[in-house]
């Protein structure tokens, strides 16, 4: 049984190795290989999840057997394995669902390099989820940034290059601040492993001036990761970045990469600072306010967009706001809601980004709303998939979006402060109405008869249907059996600190 404790490291090393291997394969073989090895990763991660649920505690894997203050560590609990499992499912579905566009958008000889990037990105995601060392977190954060820039610029049109430059500049500002924050924290605590850092901070947090220094370092670090994940007011790079990338990239960037940054931030709050100390600091309230602003303003911008992918990207900004709001509410209920929303949003948003280009294909290759009229009738299966994801975004019961809104509402009720509760309820109501407005408007548009009355029966590959159905199945599972997932997340949070 102890052999399972090696699996988290295997997932990272296997992904890195696969990234190198894919540079030597042809495009088609690289895709096949990527899908197969990601299935292997899913199996490994499922084993870790099963093991941690059964033993009821997290385990620490010490690399090279150097004990605590010196070595490098990996730590796996229920929370990390659950996130890793869902992220891998989303990753594999994005690769399968968007593979036709990868072949269209990329030069034939470079397709295998795209899978190299995807595999390196998987390695970075896995490492950020598992790591127990803050500097390892920084290194893989940079790898994630570089690979996400890579998957963005593979489509060689002017707009994506420009979007990539902007994305990189914002990300580099974020990385610089994150590094400064890490260095300051290292300066204060003298450690890079998370648990010894937490012990030191707990010991010195009684002193007012040291606590101020910790707050400053944490503030710098938080701003860095907020820029990278696109929290309001740093969300303006999102529409260009997600809107014109090749579908797999858009889906992976919006549903996995930005969530990884948030999870790393959450891990630092929970494990480096210690949640007891963190709740005394003013940072949570600032995140709450920024999150709520992001929810409302992101939705308002989405309402004004005239390009379907830009609308979805702005709605991403709003969903990031939800997650930060959950962290801002605090308490087990707030954190559970935030983590659940990470899962719910990643399965929904990937579905949206993978279906819109097919709708565009049925409407003269245009993503503008006025051209999309009736596209759901011209391509019924894609219309159905898009509709399901749209319903989840609006928050129709049985879908994941509904459960996460419910969790946020109940977390707000339990937050203790009446002003906070009223404010959060108002924001939830307003954002639900706005969400419903722009998604129902879109659904009506794509399902109502336009001038273009052709019934082109578009033939999609079986893999596309399978991957989209999988995403909808996970979405429904999150919605219908939300108590299973919230139970797992709560147990995971107990062993997370």
């Amino acid at each position, binding site marked *: 049984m102890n052999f399972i404790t090696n699996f988290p490291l295997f997932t990272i090393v296997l992904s890195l190795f696969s990234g190198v291997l894919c540079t030597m394969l042809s495009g088609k073989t690289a895709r096949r290989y990527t899908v197969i090895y990601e299935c292997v990763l899913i199996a490994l991660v499922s084993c870790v999840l099963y093991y941690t649920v059964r033993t009821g505690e997290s385990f620490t894997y010490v690399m090279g057997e150097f004990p605590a203050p010196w070595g490098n560590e990996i730590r796996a609990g229920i929370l990390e394995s659950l996130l890793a499992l869902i992220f891998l499912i989303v990753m594999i579905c994005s690769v399968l669902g968007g593979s036709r566009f990868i072949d269209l958008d990329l030069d034939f000889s470079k397709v295998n390099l795209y899978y190299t990037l995807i595999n390196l990105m998987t390695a970075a995601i896995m490492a950020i989820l598992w790591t127990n060392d803050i500097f390892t977190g920084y290194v893989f954060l940079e790898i994630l940034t570089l690979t996400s820039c890579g998957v963005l610029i593979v489509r060689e049109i*002017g707009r994506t290059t420009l979007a990539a430059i902007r994305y990189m500049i914002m990300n580099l500002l974020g990385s610089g601040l994150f590094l400064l924050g890490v*260095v300051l924290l290292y300066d204060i605590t003298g450690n890079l492993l998370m648990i010894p850092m937490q012990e030191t901070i707990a010991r010195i947090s009684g002193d007012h001036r040291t606590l101020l220094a910790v707050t400053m370092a944490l503030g710098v670090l938080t701003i860095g990761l907020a820029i990278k994940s696109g929290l309001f007011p740093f969300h303006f790079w999102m529409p260009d970045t997600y809107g014109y990338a090749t579908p797999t990239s858009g889906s992976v960037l919006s549903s996995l990469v930005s969530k990884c940054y948030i999870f790393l931030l959450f891990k630092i709050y929970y494990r480096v600072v210690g949640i007891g100390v963190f709740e005394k600091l003013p940072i949570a309230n600032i995140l709450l306010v920024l999150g709520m602003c992001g929810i409302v303003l992101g939705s308002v911008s989405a309402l004004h967009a005239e390009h379907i992918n830009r609308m979805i990207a702005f709605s991403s900004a709003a969903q990031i706001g939800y997650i930060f709001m959950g962290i801002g509410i605090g308490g087990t209920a707030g954190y559970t809601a935030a983590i659940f929303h990470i899962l719910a949003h990643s399965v929904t948003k990937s579905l949206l980004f993978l279906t819109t280009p097919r709708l565009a294909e049925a409407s003269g290759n245009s993503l503008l709303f006025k051209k999309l009229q009736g596209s759901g009738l011209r391509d019924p299966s894609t219309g159905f998939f898009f509709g399901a994801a749209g319903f989840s975004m609006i928050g129709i019961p049985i879908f994941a979006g509904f459960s996460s809104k419910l969790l946020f509402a109940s977390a707000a009720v339990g937050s203790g402060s009446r002003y906070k509760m009223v404010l959060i309820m108002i924001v939830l109501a307003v954002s639900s109405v706005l969400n419903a407005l722009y998604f129902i408007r879109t659904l009506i548009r794509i399902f109502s008869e336009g001038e273009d009355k052709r019934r082109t029966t578009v033939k999609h590959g079986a893999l596309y249907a399978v991957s989209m159905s999988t995403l909808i199945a996970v979405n429904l599972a999150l919605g219908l059996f939300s108590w299973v997932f919230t139970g797992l997340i709560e147990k995971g949070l107990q062993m997370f600190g």
Partner: protein
Amino acid sequence: MLANLLANYEEAVAVILFGIGFTMLLFQNNLFKKLIGLNIMDTGTFLFLASMGYIRGRKAPIITDGVTDAAAYINPVPAGLVLTGIVVSVSVTAIMLSLTVRLYRRYHTLQLDEIYEMSKHQTEDR
């Protein structure tokens, strides 16, 4: 306050450098100057780490004269972190330079506002 700043002048300079680099990366219009700002920002962080990691009067942790007492040596970890940071910074700069070249080939300018202006007139639907 001022005495503290003077005593830690290396760290103060490092943070000022970080600020200069940060504002350059954020506000410069010329792409190449932005990249120089990025490098100044990273260098500021490295200077901070290096100066914090060095303790006056101690030596690099290599045993040559049989002294095994840890108090005689400095901690090698900050230097290791600086090296890692430099590697990251170099690779990021390389990818940014290649992006800059690609943009220049397409728009024949390095001024970002001009590039934005030109990209507005493009019609690429998907």
